[in-house]
Structure formats: structure tokens, C-alpha cells
């Protein structure tokens, strides 16, 4: 019996890799396993090699694995590209149609299943993914009923006949391979899962769900990889809640529409990736200057320009922290798990109203699109805080304006929504006085700049630093952000076996930077390594600038478009000078 296993399916884009993966993992989730998915895809819609990998485990995991146990291949290219990941004694399930061969030097067992032929027998080659997944499921010796239930849900809306045919395809694939193998493979027999109900979703779905829980009822956005799933999820859900999604003409319209809607009182968000974020910059300044709440999600991908649109990167950090001309208060939060994606959206909407500032939620492609198991979300913990929003302003004398930008001790002013009887005031991106009227007075300018910029002094978000500091004076402090946490923890396990002690901090509050909280940890560690998916060490730059310790800090950078593998982190940490 084993506690974990890695499974991968590869083929041409558009060949059913996605749906196979979906059914396979839904069934595993029902059985209570912890899953971590990774999608490798090109930006072509049809054609081009694509593969999905799932790591299956009886205990929580948050990283892809280095190696692979089972590879399901629809073509020889999938074998050639992925077989090197197979651990010795691994299995390839491939379509007999292309006369699959195991590449030289790879020790793997090949099952050539007449995948296409069987599917065609049943009426359409479209069902070959069902034959293939049935075969690989059977090799694991897992109960077929659970799998069939997932098939039923996937195809249910196409009618009973289609469901039946697909289930038959699964059965034929399973029977064929079991006969060849002489029954399920013992070395792939997974321990039973803990049976606890988990959720299984991508980060973008958790962001969508979190937004709904936060009271977001409008989204304005322009499609882009890897952010589009957020709008696609919300447009399915918002109508039932009275809200909607507007697909705008560009990201400038998306962000300014969101600003207009937030100004008028609806929690509204937009989401994009680097190119869209770049277009939003001027408007982010408007939100900062007019103290209008705003929530933006940036799902980072490979930059610059169009860059690597379907690949992993964490290179928009500086753009998020520094973007927009002039100086405004702004919050940047980086969720580091599916759970964070959910809870951080609630926090982002709350912070945006409490401080009346733009909040950027930063994810990366792997976090946004990687499908993972996560703990059920706690409904009771959802709290909505609208800060100093007031329903009605006190009655004023004729022609007097409500002081929307009243100078207060904490810099946050009472806010009233358009429509309120006595709340009339002006809002402008031009420097303004307490009532919002343009003002060029030097004294006013200084007061207003200080008011805005001091609002976030001392801000500490929930888990701004996620600290795993079991060692008082660790050999190594590893710092990361976003989706890399699980990979780092996996590497730390291996380092511990080699006698290297390490602590791990995930920086979640990217801006304003949690300097004070971080310094003691930097002090304690003998060495510090900052791990990030970019070429210019942007996170390390923030740490050095705010907290110092430049002499201790090393960087491990990866910007080839792929997430870090645990082995890479392990190796780099071992070899640290």
C-alpha cells in the first residue's frame, strides 16, 4: 500500500485531456483523497501538446511531484515529452493505434490499449478519453461505481444514452487493461483516504466564491489567461443574486466601471493578468486619489508584454506595488493556497472599504488554475465590514457640501453613497479639499497627501506573514509567496532528513510591507533564501529594501515558465554558499 501517487494524461489540445482529468479527479475527491493538479497547456486552442498531472495523496499536499507513476498518452509525443518523469517501474497506458514505444533508457511498463478503436466501436472517437481513463482507474484498483457517478455528472445534461455509452467505454477500457495486467497493480494500491469531505477547485473558483461571500455583486472584466475563469464562474452565479458581469471593451473600461460601481455602493471587482494590469494603472491612481474602494485580482503569468501567456510567473509584483504615477495608498495581498483565495477575497473587499483604497489580490497561474483539494470553507467566519460607510449624512445648510474627505485622526473619512439626501459632495482625481472641491493650496495639498498616505500605517492583514518557525536558530530561512509554499515544504522535509534545519515564511502581505514582523526572523536565521518565479528577485528586493539583511539573503529564481519542483528547491538549498 502506498500513500501517494502521481498520474498524468497527455495529448493534443482539444483531445479531451481536460475532461478526462476532471472526471478522474472528481472521483478521487469523492473517495476523500487529497489532490493537487497541474495543467500544462499552450495558448493554442486546438493542437499543441497539453498535459494534466494530478498528485494523489492520503495526506495534505500542496505541490506537484517531481516524478510520475502513471502516464496516459494519446500520442507518441506525450510519451516522448513526459516519460522521463516516470519513476522506474512506472506505467504507460497508451493508444495502440499509434504503436506506442517506450523511449530508450526508460524503465516503464507499457499497456497498449486499443483506445481509439474501442471508442469508435461505441460510435465516436470522442469517447477515447473514457476508455483511457477507465483503463488507468482500473489499474489503481479503485471502485468503478464512484468513477461512473462522476461520468454521469459530466455527461448527464447530454442525456441518458450518452451517459450509458461513456460508462460502457470506461468499462471496456478497464476490462481490457485488467486482463493484460492480470488485475489491478499492487504497487499502485493506495491506502484508504481519511474519508473527510474536501473541496476540490481551482484558485480562480475560490476567488469567485470568496467574492460572492464578500458581497461582490458586480464584476467588470476583459477576458485574459489565466484570469477568465473568475468572470466565467461569476456570470454563472451572479444573476441569481441580482448582480451581473459586464465584459467590457478593454481593461481600462473594466477598472473604471468597477470604480464607478464601488463609488455608488456595490462591491465590484475586476480581474486580469499582467497586460490588463498595465492598462489599469492610471485608474488605480484615481481610486487611490478619490479614496474609492476597489478590488483587482491579478493572476500573474509569464511577462513582459504577451510573454508566456499560459505559463507560471510571479513577475508583476513591482507593477502592483509601484504601479500608477504619483503616490497613493494601496494594499497588495498574495493568497498562498485555495483557502486563502477564498478568505482573502472577503478580506480584500473589507479592507477596500475600511481604508477606502484599491486592493490588489495577487495570484499566479499555478494558484489560479491548479486544481487542488482544500478544507471546507467556514461560513460562520464570513464577516462583512464596510468601514465608515454611513447611510445618511447629517443635514447641512443650503449649498454646503458633505465633507467626504474630512481630515480625521486615522485618515479615513465618513463615506456616503450617491442618492443620500444630505450627502452631496464632489469626487475628483484633482487634488481637493475636504468637500472634494479642487484645491491647489499648498497647506491643503500636504494635509491631503498625509491623510491618504498615512491611512495604512501599521496595517496587518490576516496572516500577513505565514510563519512556520519551528527552529529557534534555523540554518535556513526560506521565504516565498503565492503558489510555491507546498514545494518549499516538500523540499524542507528532505533537507531535515539531511540535518538541515529550516523555517519557512510565506509573505502574504506584499504591500504595505510587513517589515517589523519580518525582521526578527531574518535576524535569527543563519542564511535566508528567497524563492520566486521571476528573473529580477522582486520579492527579495522588497525584503532588502525594507528590512535589510542584504548580506544574508540569497535568491532562487525560476523564470522558464514552469513552477519550481521540490527537487530544485532542495538542491539549491543544499548547495547554498
Amino acid at each position: 500500500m502506498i500513500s501517494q501517487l502521481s498520474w498524468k494524461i497527455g495529448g493534443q489540445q482539444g483531445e479531451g485531456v481536460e475532461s478526462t482529468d476532471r472526471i478522474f479527479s472528481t472521483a478521487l475527491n469523492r473517495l476523500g483523497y487529497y489532490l493537487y493538479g497541474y495543467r500544462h497547456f499552450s495558448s493554442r486552442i486546438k493542437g499543441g501538446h497539453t498535459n494534466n498531472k494530478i498528485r494523489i495523496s492520503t495526506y495534505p499536499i500542496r505541490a506537484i511531484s517531481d516524478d510520475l507513476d502513471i502516464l496516459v498518452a494519446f500520442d507518441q509525443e506525450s510519451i516522448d515529452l513526459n516519460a522521463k518523469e516516470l519513476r522506474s517501474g512506472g506505467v504507460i497506458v497508451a493508444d495502440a493505434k499509434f504503436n506506442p514505444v517506450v523511449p530508450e533508457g526508460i524503465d516503464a511498463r507499457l499497456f497498449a490499449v486499443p483506445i481509439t478503436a474501442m471508442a469508435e466501436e461505441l460510435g465516436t472517437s470522442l469517447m477515447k478519453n473514457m476508455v483511457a481513463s477507465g483503463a488507468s482507474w482500473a489499474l489503481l484498483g479503485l471502485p468503478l461505481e464512484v468513477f461512473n457517478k462522476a461520468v454521469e455528472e459530466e455527461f448527464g445534461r447530454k442525456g441518458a444514452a450518452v451517459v450509458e455509452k461513456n460508462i460502457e467505454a470506461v468499462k471496456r477500457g478497464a476490462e481490457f487493461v485488467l486482463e493484460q495486467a492480470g488485475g489491478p497493480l499492487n504497487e499502485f494500491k493506495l491506502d484508504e483516504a481519511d474519508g473527510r469531505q474536501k473541496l476540490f477547485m481551482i484558485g480562480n473558483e475560490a476567488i469567485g466564491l470568496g467574492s460572492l461571500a464578500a458581497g461582490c455583486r458586480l464584476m467588470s472584466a476583459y477576458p485574459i489567461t489565466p484570469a477568465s475563469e473568475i468572470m466565467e464562474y461569476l456570470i454563472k452565479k451572479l444573476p441569481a443574486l441580482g448582480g451581473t458581469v459586464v465584459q467590457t471593451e478593454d481593461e481600462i473600461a473594466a477598472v473604471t466601471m468597477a470604480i464607478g460601481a464601488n463609488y455608488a455602493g456595490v462591491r465590484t471587482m475586476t480581474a486580469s493578468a499582467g497586460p490588463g494590469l498595465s492598462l489599469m494603472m492610471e485608474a488605480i491612481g484615481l481610486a487611490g486619489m478619490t479614496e474609492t474602494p476597489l478590488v483587482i485580482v491579478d493572476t500573474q503569468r509569464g511577462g513582459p508584454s504577451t510573454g508566456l501567456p499560459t505559463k507560471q510567473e510571479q513577475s508583476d509584483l513591482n507593477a502592483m506595488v509601484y504601479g500608477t504615477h504619483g503616490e497613493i495608498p494601496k494594499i497588495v495581498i498574495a493568497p498562498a493556497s485555495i483557502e486563502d483565495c477564498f478568505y482573502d477575497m472577503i478580506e480584500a473587499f473589507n479592507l477596500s472599504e475600511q481604508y477606502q483604497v484599491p486592493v490588489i489580490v495577487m495570484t499566479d497561474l499555478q494558484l489560479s488554475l491548479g486544481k487542488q483539494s482544500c478544507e471546507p470553507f467556514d461560513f460562520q467566519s464570513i464577516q462583512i465590514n464596510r468601514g465608515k460607510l454611513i447611510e445618511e449624512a447629517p443635514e447641512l445648510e443650503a449649498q454646503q457640501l458633505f465633507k467626504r474627505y474630512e481630515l480625521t485622526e486615522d485618515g479615513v473619512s465618513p463615506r456616503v453613497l450617491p442618492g443620500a439626501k444630505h450627502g452631496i459632495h464632489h469626487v475628483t482625481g484633482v487634488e481637493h479639499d475636504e468637500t472634494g472641491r479642487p484645491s491647489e493650496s499648498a497647506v491643503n495639498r500636504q494635509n491631503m497627501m498625509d491623510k491618504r498616505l498615512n491611512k495604512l500605517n501599521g496595517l496587518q492583514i490576516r496572516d500577513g506573514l505565514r510563519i512556520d518557525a519551528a527552529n529557534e536558530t534555523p540554518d535556513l530561512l526560506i521565504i516565498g509567496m503565492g503558489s510555491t509554499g507546498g514545494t518549499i515544504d516538500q523540499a524542507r522535509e528532505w533537507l531535515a532528513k539531511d540535518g538541515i534545519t529550516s523555517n519557512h515564511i510565506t509573505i502574504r502581505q506584499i504591500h504595505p510591507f510587513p517589515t517589523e514582523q519580518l525582521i526578527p526572523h531574518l535576524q535569527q536565521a543563519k542564511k535566508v533564501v528567497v524563492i520566486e518565479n521571476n528573473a529580477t528577485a522582486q520579492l527579495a528586493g522588497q525584503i532588502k529594501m525594507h528590512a535589510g539583511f542584504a548580506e544574508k539573503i540569497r535568491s532562487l529564481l525560476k523564470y522558464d515558465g514552469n513552477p519550481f519542483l521540490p527537487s530544485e528547491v532542495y538542491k539549491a538549498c543544499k548547495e547554498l554558499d
Partner: protein
Amino acid sequence: MATFKEFRNNVKPNWCPGCGDFSIQAAIQRAAANVGLEPEELAVISGIGCSGRISGYINAYGLHGIHGRALPIAQGVKLANRELTVIASGGDGDGFAIGMGHTVHAIRRNLNITYIVMDNQIYGLTKGQTSPRSAEGFKTKSTPEGSIESTLSPLEIAMSAGATFVAQSFSSDLKQLTALIEAGIKHEGFSLINVFSPCVTFNKINTYDWFKQNIVNLEQFPDYDPSNRIMAMNKIMETEGMLTGLIYQNTQRKSYEDMISGFGADALAKQELSLSEEQFNKLVAEFK
């Protein structure tokens, strides 16, 4: 009921004496009173330019945004609170140069807002450069030998983008302008009102007198039918866009708000934010 005086505030406009924008401000104030609005029921969203300052000169909720983006902001306001009357406003550069993409798509989208363009055929605030509305050959600081680009026809563009309300007026004709703004506010969909608004400081060609000599009022054509799209398009072309009055109105097409699936008649901003536990559980169940 509020009178137009209640839409005035005590801010003194920084427009040059004689600027056409003053009359547009007055017309908005009068129209708002005439349709029975209270100041707090109106939101004026403006762009950047001399014209863009207008939102600060009317006693109503006002947002002065960024250059070219008045329309998407205004649409956001309307989506959030459809009980508000929303007027978007700005210059010809704001709406037809930097913001042209938004203008076309706002027209297509057809939210129930009124867009008033203060068209002076020049960039006023930046002190006299060419605009998409400048005539060919028009000499400005940025086109010292005369503009060599063709003049944009916002009316034709609006028609071809599927506009449901297209009107044009002249800032000197306060009566017509006020009536058109009233009609625009009442129209249930997007209304575009392009207003010739002379810039007395930087545009010495398109002056008050020049407009008086060159525009034709649609009233002169008793058979004109603003519900006839072809007639409207013909008239715009015949007059080379120098016509005033209600050019086209389609009362059949529903507004965007009325077509959004599940969108209520009340302000979205007034809805409860929290999900019920039942709603929440239903959403979560999909991920099991």
C-alpha cells in the same frame, strides 16, 4: 420639487468668459429641474478637459474622473444604482479621441444614461491642439500647417453603432438644448447629445457666428421623422453633420439594465450583501 437654482452650487467655474460650456451647465440644471429631479437623485460623471470640470459646478453628486473614461465610470454608477439619473459629460477629445472606444461600446451597451459632449472642435484645457472634430486644414498648435486627418462624424458613428438616441445642439440655443437634455434623460437607454460649444480662446474659426451661419435646425423640415433610421443617416450626411435637434430615437429597444438576466428594478447598491447559509452551501456543493 427642486427648481433649477437648487442645482447650482457656490463654486465659480474657471471657464473663460464667453465659453460655450456655461450654457451647457445651465441647460443641465434646467433640464434636471424640469424633469422633476432632486439634486441627490442626479449623478454627473465627467472626464478631463475644460468641459470635464462641469461635474463640480452642479449641485448634485459628481465624479470628475480621468481623461476619456467618463462613460465606463458612469455605466458603473448606473449599474450599481439604477435609481439615480446619470449624466456623463466631457469634451470632444475626451469622448471622441482617447475615449472613443468607450463611446462606441457604451452606445452598443445602451445603459440608461445621458452623454453630453461639449464639442469645441479643439483641445481647450491643453491650450489649443487639434481634436478629432477639427476640420481638415484647421491650424492649431499641434497642426501648424493645418490638420491632414479627416474630421470624425460622431453622429454617423453613433448611428452605425446602434444608438437609440442621437441629438445635437448648440450651446447658444438654451431652449433647444434644455429640451433635448430632458428628452435624453427620459429616454430609456443611452442618449448621445453632441453640443457645439465654442471655445472663445483657442478656436477662432468655429465661433458663435460661424455656427449660427452653418447649422440647420431640424425644425425646418416638418416631415422629418426621428424614428426613421435611414432618414436620420441621410440628413446627417446631407448637412455634413451641421444639424441640430433630435436626430434619431428608437424607443423599441430595451435598456441594458432591463435585459440583464436576474437584474432587479431596485438599486443593486441597496441589496443585502451577505449570502444566506443555504445559498452558501449550495454554491460550495459544486466543488465536492
